[in-house]
Structure formats: C-alpha cells, structure tokens
C-alpha cells in the first residue's frame, strides 16, 4: 500500500493483513556529502518501488521522510504515530546509522551514477532481495 487517497481509504479495514509500515528515511543535507545523499535517495526510491510490487498486500510504504543533520526527532514521532494507528511493525529503510530504538534496515551505498542500466538493475535487485529477506525475518520472528 502507498500513502495515497485510495489506499489510505481502505487502510484501517485491512490492518489485519497490512501489518507492517515502511518509512524510507533519507538525508538531504547540502554539504560535502550532497552527491552521496543524492545517490542514496535515488537508491531508496528504486528499492521502495520494487518492494511495493513484491509485498503490496502486507506493507504500507509512507512518503519518504527527509532529514538534515541526522535529526531523528520527527522520525520518532512518526514511528509512534504508526504504532498507535495499529501497525505491528514499523521498519525504517535508510542509509543512516540509527539507534536501536528504531527497527531499521540499512541499505548499501551504491554509486549508481557510473553504471550501465543492466548492472544498475542487477545491483538494485540484489539490494531489494536483501531488504525482502530482512522483512520476512521480521515477520517470522
């Protein structure tokens, strides 16, 4: 499910099946690391699209949450809100190194800019598989 009108309209009734929220969490600092961040954001987007295709019926992907200076205050509030709404799991998809209070899946940093589209496709797919395994293990735990 995605954060759009039609999906959210039915979300409350489907919480029995859609029990996992995924928050893509990215950094948008415009500092020396900006180029890396730009790449990371692209990867997070690509992974999210694939993830939605694979797990449409059990995960709810929120809009990507953006931060600066690695501030996690808003994320904390959002996580609480999602748990209160009724989600059993809230998973954060990110490149940042988060505290243990968050259930986060860390993505690899892949320099997508220099790659031919075939290789890019393969690498992104590997990343998606890794994330899928992590999510399945959360479900089975």
């Amino acid at each position, binding site marked *: 499910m995605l954060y759009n009108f039609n999906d959210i309209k039915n979300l409350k009734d489907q919480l029995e*099946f859609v029990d996992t929220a995924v928050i893509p969490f990215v950094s948008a600092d415009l500092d020396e690391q900006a180029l890396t961040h730009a790449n990371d954001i692209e990867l997070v987007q690509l992974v999210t699209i694939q993830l939605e295709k*694979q*797990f*449409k*019926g*059990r995960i709810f992907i929120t809009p990507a949450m953006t931060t600066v200076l690695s501030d996690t205050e808003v994320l904390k509030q959002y996580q609480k809100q999602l748990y209160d709404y009724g989600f059993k799991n809230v998973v954060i998809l990110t490149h940042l190194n988060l505290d243990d209070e968050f259930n986060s899946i860390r993505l690899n940093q892949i320099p997508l800019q220099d790659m031919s589209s075939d290789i890019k496709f393969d690498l992104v797919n590997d990343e998606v598989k890794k994330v899928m395994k992590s999510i*399945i293990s959360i479900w089975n735990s």
Partner: protein
Amino acid sequence: MSQKVTRRQFLNYSLMGVGSFMAAGMILPMGRMALDPLFQDDSEGSMITTSVTVDEITEEPMQVDFTFEQEDAWYTSEVTDFAWVYRDGNEIIAFSPVCKHLGCTVTWAADDNNPERFFCPCHNGLYEKNGENVPGTPPTGPLDQFEVGESDGFLTIGQVFPNELV
C-alpha cells in the same frame, strides 16, 4: 497516313487526361485513409516479445521478464514485469505473478515445505502448479494467465485473462 487530330478530339483528350489526374489526386488519399486501419499495428492488444526462446522453456516454471511502455497521465515510463512460464506437453502456460489475495508477488517453490507450489510470502498463500489456489490459504481464486505466442522462436506475452486451467 497520319491521322488528323481535330480540335474537338484534342480538347476531349486533354480534358480527360487532366480530369483523371485530378480525380486520382482526390480519390487516392481518400482510399488510403479508408484502408489505413488495416495497415496499423494494433497497439492495444499487441504481444510483447521477450528475450526467451520457446525451446528454453521447460516443465519447471521460470521467470520471464518483459518490458513495455506505460502511459501515466503526463509521462510514459518503461515498466518491467514478469510472468511464470512453463511447458505442459505442447502447450506453454504463463501465469501472472500477482497474488489474488492482496496483490503481492508470488514465487515458485519459495517455501521449503511446498517445493512444487507457488508461494506468496505476504500471508503464506499457496497455489498449485496449474495456478489453483490451495484451500485453507488466504487467496480466493486461481492465478491469472497471460496470452502467449511465438515470434521467430521467441516467446511473446499478451493480455492477462482469468485462469482457464482450473
């Protein structure tokens, strides 16, 4: 010997010549337009050619990717999708990987306890090889099928239709 062409004849011939050019100039484009639909490729129901040859397909379901252009309000994007394809006698069967429960993607033999079934990881849905949903698991209907065809030895994939094997 030489036949004299009268003024009347000359005018007749030249009028007929010019007239037929004018008529042709009008009728040909009209005719072309009337027949045009016959020359158009049917873009809606057209088959997408995959990179997999028909000979490669075995009785074990395999994932076959295909790419098509999708128009989404303002922009067109290239979408890659896939089908589960296997051979059943002389027939080729292609299933849509979309679970009939809530739309997750199903995988062949992903569950160790059910090596000969399609498995949906979201809510442990199961389907038999012919796409039939296993009773007692969440899915409410069998997997959809794709139209399949062959073009120069390569597998082509068309529209989705409800399962006809069950």
